[in-house]
């Protein structure tokens, strides 16, 4: 036990002293901050676009656009998202496109309330005798199509409304018809009629479970890679035999797994603590008052999720950790490890996609079958748990996973023992998969 403790302690302290650990620690909050903050930053940093409308139809089309812009401004005032602030209509400095061209090319500026500004777009509107409308959209920006789509939608609604009015439908009736929408009640047949209604808060555990499954995957993926790199380094430095002079193979293997497990526990605790602190902090802010932070916390800490998550983490980590340690013990360099790593990486990537499918179709045959694959069970079953999978599935997959983990750890121990003393290398593993069991001559 002393050797296991000392090896685990050394491993833990050596990882914590690396840049990789601190980068991993910072990566999750950094990515979350980027995930939330970047769209807001992009939204806020986008410049205001100034455009001009030249209505050659006599003013009716421009009036329709003006009316739509006013409606959008009213909507923006009631906290609804709108593009009204991004696009500001200005009086056209000229009506002829040749005269407008220098403004569109940025050679000349139009006068605005914000001072002289480049003209983003010039929109010519025409209407023929049959009521058909043509929009001529001049702009050097080929990618930002939001304004073009807004104008098109506005005039499309205008044309449809006109047609209805021409056929005797009153504008009030059209507005009334447009506001019609069914009310939807989602009910769970497993409950009594009084309590059958499903609320949006009830979906939170499913979303949280998927989040936890992803988190689990990220943690396992990060730490097993650390484990592999450190193992290869140790093998290359020829420290292993010095270690074997003081401790047994299983003590080294267990100590290493335990040390890295402590590293991942540290990561999880720091991330969890940070998330809880940010969540509690957000609750005090007025703009986040409407967010269901309390429900999210309750869903994360639900014993029905947290205890299986801990169990799946331990088993998943042991399986992948033991495999990556064994791979590391067979290789002298990272290049050597690439060949053996590739199939493992593919295997590890699959649950990432399946977890997303499991969110919508937890009873899909593919998901049910995939959850019986022991290396995927920790992630897929975790995502399935809030949707009440069959008890047979829960018990069966767990038993298969635990049995496989025991087998993998045993096998990894054998490989580690052979690899540590250079009695096996990556070619040995390749040889197992060689077609027809052909052996090298000699």
């Amino acid at each position, binding site marked *: 036990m*002393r*050797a296991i403790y*000392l*090896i685990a302690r*050394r491993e833990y302290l*050596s990882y914590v*002293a690396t840049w990789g650990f601190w980068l991993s620690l910072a990566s999750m909050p950094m990515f979350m901050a980027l995930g939330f903050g970047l769209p807001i930053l992009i939204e806020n940093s986008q410049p205001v676009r100034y455009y001009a409308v030249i209505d050659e139809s006599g003013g009716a089309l421009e009036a329709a656009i003006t009316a739509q812009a006013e409606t959008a401004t009213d909507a923006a005032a009631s906290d609804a998202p709108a593009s009204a602030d991004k696009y500001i209509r200005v009086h056209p400095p000229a009506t002829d496109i040749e005269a407008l061209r220098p403004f569109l090319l940025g050679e000349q500026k139009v006068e605005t309330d914000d001072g002289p500004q480049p003209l983003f777009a010039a929109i010519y509107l025409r209407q023929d005798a049959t009521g058909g409308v043509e929009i001529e959209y001049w702009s050097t920006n080929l990618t930002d199509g939001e304004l073009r789509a807004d104008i098109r939608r506005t005039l499309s609604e205008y044309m449809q409304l006109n047609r209805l009015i021409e056929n005797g439908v009153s504008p009030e009736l059209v507005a009334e018809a447009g506001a019609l929408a069914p009310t939807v009640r989602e009910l769970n047949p497993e409950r009594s009629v009084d309590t059958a209604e499903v609320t949006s808060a009830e979906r939170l555990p499913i979303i949280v479970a998927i989040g936890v499954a992803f988190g689990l995957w990220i943690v396992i993926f990060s730490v097993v890679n650390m484990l592999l790199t450190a193992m290869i380094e*140790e093998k290359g*430095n*020829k*420290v*292993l*035999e*010095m*270690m*074997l*002079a*003081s*401790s*047994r193979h299983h*003590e080294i293997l267990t100590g290493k797994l335990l040390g890295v497990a402590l590293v991942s526990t540290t990561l999880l605790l720091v991330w969890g603590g940070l998330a809880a602190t940010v969540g509690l902090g957000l609750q005090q802010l007025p703009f986040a008052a409407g967010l269901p932070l309390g429900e999210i916390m309750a869903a994360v800490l639900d014993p029905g999720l947290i205890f299986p998550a801990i169990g799946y983490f331990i088993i998943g980590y042991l399986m992948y950790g033991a495999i990556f340690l064994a791979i590391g013990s067979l290789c002298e360099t990272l290049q050597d490890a690439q060949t053996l790593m590739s199939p493992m990486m593919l295997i590890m990537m699959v649950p990432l996609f399946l977890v997303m499918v499991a969110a919508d179709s937890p009873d899909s045959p593919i998901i049910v079958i995939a959850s019986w694959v022991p290396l995927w069970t920790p992630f897929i079953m975790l995502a399935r748990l809030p949707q009440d999978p069959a008890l047979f599935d829960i018990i069966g997959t767990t038993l298969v996973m635990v049995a496989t983990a025991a087998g993998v750890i045993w096998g990894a121990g054998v490989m580690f023992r052979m690899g540590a*003393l*250079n*009695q096996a290398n990556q070619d040995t593993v390749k040889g197992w998969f060689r077609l027809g069991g052909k052996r090298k001559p000699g």
Partner: protein
Amino acid sequence: MSEIILSLAGVSKTFNGKAAVSDLSFDVRRGKITGFLGPNGAGKSTSLRMALGILTPDSGQVSLFGGRPRASALERVGFLPEERGLYRKMKVIDVIIFFARLKGVAPIEARRRGLAMLDEFGLGDVAESKVKTLSKGMAQKIQIIATLIHDPEFIILDEPFSGLDPVNQKALERIVRARAEAGATILFSTHVMEHAERLCDQIVLVARGRKVFDGTVEEALGHVPRRVVLETVSETDLTPVFAPLGEIAESRANADGAHHWMINLGRGVEAQDVLKACVDGNIKLLRFEPARAHLHDAFVHLVETSGQFSNEKLEGEAV
């Protein structure tokens, strides 16, 4: 006879169908320096790994301190493996403390002993340096310190002299002697016979996984014929004079007109008898040199006479 610390009895080990060690038996006795000698690939490292329980023999018995080589026995053993390295990113003193603690030394005592041994080895000023900044020779001294830090009663050194310059080889020889004088039992493997010749009370010679000799250095040298090298000037053939004294191993005419002889002395014949024969025969001598046998010669001779191996192969293997 002193207590047996390590005993291998009929031990064999095969890797991928190739025998690394075959039916090997020898004992290491308390307080002795035992040399485990043989060319590269003779099975020395495999045998030492089996002695410590790092590898399990396919057949035969290993006894360490009177029992199976269990993990608990490792605390009484200091093992310097042939494939040795250190944690490059750790500080020197921390590496030493780590290995000392693995051997059951308390942290404060480990630091005290570590600093003392670093001073003893002339490395006191690198205690707080990272291992990666050390030269190869310095790193090897740190490995030796890490092996000896817990003051083991049984020290196993696998090719301890390889990688050391002559000065450090001498220093290591002094350390081995000092530990032995302090009561430690020492087993070391080497393919360089000179070290064993200078240090060992007992030697075990192996070749291709098999033992070819087990005894003292003197006993090993006793197997090698004593020789005399002569250079004579004579107009007559001297073969009838020298033939009764032993086997004439070499006889050739030199470019300067002298004749070169190497005579393997026969049983009961001394070098003085050859000299007397020369004086009695009025033979003009340019050179008379009784040749001292070396362990290398003993090794080659023992292997040849064991009849297990071809001569030219072993001449190539032995260093």
